[in-house]
């Protein structure tokens, strides 16, 4: 978290993360070129330009799968949270690799002719009415446009100015963009030169892995929410025995039709805040109390549990909820207070 905007708030973890991204990209492209151009292989005589275009495209496609897998994996196990922390840099790196693939392919296949390369990209293959010969390049171009918008807004400046909800909506476009890229690969590289069944199965396996991870994370989250739903007649929510909440941790309770509420236990008392971080709507209830502040598991943004406000000089706020204790159980008023409104913590008997 930061009180001012700078291009990157570097820390040790981010530097190591970025070195890892660079090493992964170098490894992918190095192995790809070495294998595809190996003496004796059918592709050994491939033009160097086509080899690089293919390597960049395959590398970008793999990176997109990693990016899409990190989110649900982090929901399933906190061990993946360090991979989520700097996913933004992975996203921008992916865009640069995908853009390089697109730019190089456009120059190599569409420049130096009698048409403008960007016109040729869409008209040189006119078979929009056919599946087998469909101009797959256009699908990649539209996906790249979405990735550009996402990469260009991958900064807290845009997050704050667009609002978390709008920003998140824009970045959810990664799913239609992923669908476009899957079709781009299936109708392009996977079906080129007579097609390869193994290539199609490889793409299908990646797609199935992403779908399975998202569905599993969704089901697990649903079951968590379901198990915490304990409504009582007077309208307050029974969040269960306070002593069952681990010290400095939270239990998340759900409000039908509303957002989740994170009930934290700390220093012999409990407080409740919205489960959505003001930064990227991360799950605050999966965070901890660190240095007296609720700390988001995604990017470490912090809030005072009693006020829902970030410690000065930071200015972020989340909604608080009124809490009370009865017979050792925590009850939460499901009506949220205004963002950053102090709510008296309830003392545990």
């Amino acid at each position, binding site marked *: 978290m930061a009180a001012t905007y700078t291009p990157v708030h570097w*820390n040790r973890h981010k530097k190591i993360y970025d070195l890892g991204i660079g090493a992964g990209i170098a490894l992918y492209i190095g192995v*790809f070129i070495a294998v595809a151009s190996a003496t004796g292989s059918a592709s050994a005589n491939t*033009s160097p330009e086509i080899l690089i275009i*293919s390597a960049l495209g395959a590398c970008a496609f793999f990176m997109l799968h990693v990016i899409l897998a990190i989110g649900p994996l982090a929901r399933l196990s906190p061990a993946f949270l360090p991979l989520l*922390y700097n996913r933004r840099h992975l996203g921008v790196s992916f865009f640069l690799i995908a853009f390089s693939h697109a730019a190089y392919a456009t120059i190599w*296949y569409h420049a130096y002719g009698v048409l403008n390369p960007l016109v040729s990209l869409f008209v040189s293959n006119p078979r929009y009415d056919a599946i087998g010969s469909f101009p797959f390049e256009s699908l990649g171009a539209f996906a790249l446009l979405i990735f550009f918008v996402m990469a260009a807004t991958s900064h807290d400046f845009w997050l704050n100015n667009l609002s978390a909800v709008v920003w998140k909506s824009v970045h959810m476009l990664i799913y239609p963009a992923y669908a476009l890229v899957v079709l781009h690969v299936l109708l392009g*590289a996977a079906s*080129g030169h007579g097609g390869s069944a193994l290539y199609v199965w490889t793409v299908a396996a990646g797609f199935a892995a992403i779908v399975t991870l998202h569905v599993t994370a969704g089901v697990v989250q649903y079951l968590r929410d379901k198990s915490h739903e304990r409504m009582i007649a007077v309208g307050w929510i029974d969040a269960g025995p306070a002593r069952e909440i681990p010290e400095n941790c939270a239990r998340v309770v759900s409000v039908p039709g509303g957002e989740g509420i994170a009930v934290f236990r700390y220093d012999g008392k409990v407080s409740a805040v919205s489960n959505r971080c003001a930064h990227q709507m991360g799950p605050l209830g999966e965070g901890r109390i660190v240095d007296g502040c609720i700390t988001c598991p995604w990017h470490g943004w912090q809030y005072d549990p009693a006020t829902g406000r970030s410690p000065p000089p930071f200015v972020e706020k989340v909604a608080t909820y009124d809490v009370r204790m009865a017979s050792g159980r925590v009850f939460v008023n499901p009506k949220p207070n205004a963002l950053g409104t102090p709510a008296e913590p309830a003392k545990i008997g």
Partner: protein
Amino acid sequence: MSAREFYVGYLSMPPRLRWTVRGLVLLLLALVALDAWLVASMQPAAGKGTWADAPQEYAGTLTRRPYPMLRVKTQAGIKTYLLVSDEKRGAEAALGVTPDGPVKLSGFPITRSGLGMIELAANDVAVISETAAIEEPAREVHGTVTLEGEIVDSKCWLGVMRPGEGHLHKACASLCIRGGIPPMFVTRGRGSDVPALMLLTQADGSAVPPELIIPFVADAVRVTGTIEKRGDLWVLKADLSTLARIK
């Protein structure tokens, strides 16, 4: 990661989590190498075409119809080279008003499957008046056949793009043929008596107007035509009204 450990990006990583993350990163790098190896091993065959880096000098007889060609005397006999310009353009503009007959020129040789092409190095094709022209070889008609195969642009297929055929290369092939590169027909599943590679012309032997074949370029097609051998060059004089996709 133990139950009590909690990760915050800007703080030191908890010790047990550190080992878990190292393991995950190693696993991810192994996946990186595995995917790169798998996808690279599925790359299509590139053919054995070549495209020389250095220009060579040629002296021979220029013929501009149906497509610009140069016949050159070699120790092995008369060799026919197709002529193209740089980029994705045919040689017509570079040849200007140069008439059929003896010329000198320089260019980059492109070769595949015994067929040669010259990419003109510059617009400096010089007429040689003191040399006798090499006569056009006799035309041997090898009958009318219906063939299955693919229309390719000769420049890419012969060696400039490797691979230079199929769906991935469709847009480029269309652009090349639109720019005047001679189209060729590559047969598939051919019998031993049918050549694999033939220059494509209309039924009357004239150059194919690009707009007639561009929608079919790089697709699997069937066409009926007459096969003709002109020296070392095979020509398919195609009845383009029979041109149709086969899948």
